[in-house]
């Protein structure tokens, strides 16, 4: 692993730096932030000063503090959701590919039905009915996202499943779990890892979009998408505050994608 990082290209290193910084900020949020997450400490939309590094938001909270906690909430949430969607999607995809027949048909058709709805509308519907609590948010997005993961992992597993070493394992009498865990998963890792990075970004943007519509994380919890929405009005007065969380979203997305590109490059077998 260490050797791999040492050989990485500059672009991937920049990506790692961005992601690393964000993770560090998220992890040590209480130590870094000068104020409390929800504390009203100043005037509305103050410009940056020695007291407020990035100024204050629409009700006078320190924007820098909100950004730091926002990183924590947004990244943790995206990570949980992506992890969950991968767990579900990969497992279902592999089972469908190995079992084939009606198991495959059953799972695939259900996935088709879910995919037939535009994701945002589906999520809005569920969240308006169930209420935008954090667990609902996590499960809704994870399930919606797992359909895409399912498609990919099923296709990847099908390519691997026809190889003779899988047949050899079958002839040995191995069960479904062993075949998935030991024969298919290790060979499917590169594309899945790359997809993980991409999905992570999408979830990130999706939460931001939901927050912007008021169905993401609920105030007073800080999250970047929500902060853009809350401060959107500032633009009218020529104050650039909403652009700061928006920029943070953009930078992290670029960072993750730089790493993902490198993974894709590695897994494609092109080493030059």
């Amino acid at each position, binding site marked *: 692993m260490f050797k791999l990082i040492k050989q990485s290209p500059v672009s991937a290193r920049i990506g790692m730096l961005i992601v690393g910084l964000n993770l560090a900020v998220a992890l040590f949020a209480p130590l870094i932030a000068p104020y409390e997450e929800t504390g009203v400490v100043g005037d509305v939309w103050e410009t940056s000063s020695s007291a407020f590094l990035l100024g204050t938001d629409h009700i006078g909270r320190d924007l820098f503090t909100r950004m730091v906690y926002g990183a924590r909430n947004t990244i943790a949430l995206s990570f949980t959701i992506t992890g969950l969607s991968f767990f579900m999607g990969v497992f279902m995809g592999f089972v469908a590919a190995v079992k084939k027949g009606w198991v495959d048909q059953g799972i695939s058709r259900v996935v088709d039905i879910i995919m037939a709805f535009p994701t945002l509308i589906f999520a809005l519907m569920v969240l308006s009915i169930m209420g935008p609590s954090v667990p609902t948010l996590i499960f809704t997005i994870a399930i919606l996202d797992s359909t895409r993961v399912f498609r990919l992992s099923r296709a990847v597993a099908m390519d691997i499943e026809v190889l*003779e*070493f899988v*047949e*050899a394992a079958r*002839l040995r*009498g*191995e069960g479904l779990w062993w075949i998935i865990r030991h024969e298919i998963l290790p*060979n499917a890792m590169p594309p899945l890892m790359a997809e993980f990075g991409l999905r992570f970004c999408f979830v990130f943007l999706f939460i931001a979009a939901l927050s912007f519509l008021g169905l993401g994380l609920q105030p007073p919890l800080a999250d970047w998408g929500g902060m853009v929405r809350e401060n959107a009005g500032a633009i009218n007065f020529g104050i650039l505050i909403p652009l700061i969380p928006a920029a943070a979203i953009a930078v992290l997305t670029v960072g993750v994608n730089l790493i993902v590109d490198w993974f894709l490059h590695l897994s494609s077998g092109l080493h030059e």
Partner: protein
Amino acid sequence: MSNLLKIRNLHIEGFYENQWQPIVKNVSLELKRGEVLGLIGESGAGKSTIGLAAMGYTRQGCRLASGSIDLEGTELFGASDEDLRLIRGSKVAYVAQSAAASFNPSHRVIRQYAEAPVHHGLKSYKEAEEEAVELYRRLFLPTPEKIGYRFPHELSGGQLQRAMVAMAMSCEPDIIVFDEPTTALDVTTQIEVLAAVKEITEKMNKAALYITHDLAVVAQVAHRIMVLRNGKMVEEGETRRLIKNPKEKYTRDLLNVRKSMDNHEIDPSSDVILNINNVAATYTGHDNVIEDIDLKVQRGQTVALVGESGSGKSTLARVITGLLPRTTGDISFLGQSLSTTLKQRKKDDLRRLQMIYQMPDTALNPRHTVRKVIGRPLKFYFGLKGKAAELRIRELLEKIELNPDAYIDRLTTELSGGEKQRICIARALAAEPELIICDEVTSALDQLVAEGILNLLQDLQNKTDVSYLFITHDLATVKAIADKIVIMLQGKIVEQGEKKKVLSPPHHTYTDKLLASVPKMDPDWLDTLLEERASTYL
């Protein structure tokens, strides 16, 4: 006669592990008009690389390092892309190993024939078409007027390969490079392609480089043979001289590959462990792929299942293993009837029946180590763990003649083809089976490596009394190791019996054709055979 092609002190390098490493080392050769030079060697010998270099081409990641390639007075080393484009196709042409992969599947064959001469401005499309038909006739393709208007998938493998030979001739080049044109074909279709190659080189007076790993094949078409190994020339000589009187040990090894091994006698009264009775199977639900299969395998016996591709021999293996349920008949193994499907079989039945595959590359999980590959059946069937498993893995590695310390921690991708196949054998042996189904286990390997594998299998049989069901299309292999031969054609068994009985006349007509098609290490074999066939069919 002057030389058409003169290669002097050629060095070619490949970019590997971040540095340039030599692939071809100091090879020189000459080719006169009307002459065929055979290049022979194992994979990695550099024969294809030399063949491509004769057209001034190298594969991606390779470069011509030094030397000279003189084609009719033009120096190809360092020639511009434009100059090379002009000579390729029109002066030198190339016939690849897999015709199926070399044709564009969405254009008709004759259109692909005409592409090069029209592009080079040599002929009109109409002229090219007429010529193609004439060539198809000369290369013995059926219905030469019509066959060109088919799509590549509508031709058989042997026909496609001949169409490709015709295509190489379309710009009337002086030199043709044949790169293993018959390797992927059955013996009976191989003859047709060899006859076509001979027609071109002899009657049309073209020069050719013929690349192959099969000495008996090259002996039929080449005037001179050059033996290559690891990018260096081992020996060069006139065909008859080289075969009769090889100077180097390596050449002698290659020549000896096809000699029969000493056979062990099996006790005719030893118990029958596999008894297949009137079995049929289908993929579609109707139209049986195999039917009326009756077959017995005794303990310690090697039964060879022989047939061309499409004869149903691999399907039979799938039926025996339970991957494909049989529709009728019965298979009994060690006295008990086997369930039709894999799922219903007992773990012990699965253990006693093991399989080794044709392609060791895909038969081993690339992410597993040797320890895991061999250790898994030990744990799965016998519950061996920790130290006991480790000892047994090492013991098995020694049995397959690989040094345990050097190999046990390697990933399967870090092995050569022959080593991989040995690991597959060890994986099968780990289960302590009674019967191993070997599906074309040597056809993806070089001859000398393949011989090592066959020797190992024979040796293991002598020690453990395991039986083999040996699926192959290679009759030379059969002659070397089989006790009993079963010949299949279109899903049915046409003949079976003891090796001596099947191999000596009178044969079933199909057996006869199959046997007669195996190239012999005799330069006159093809000519004699073609004459015989011409006289019987006319």
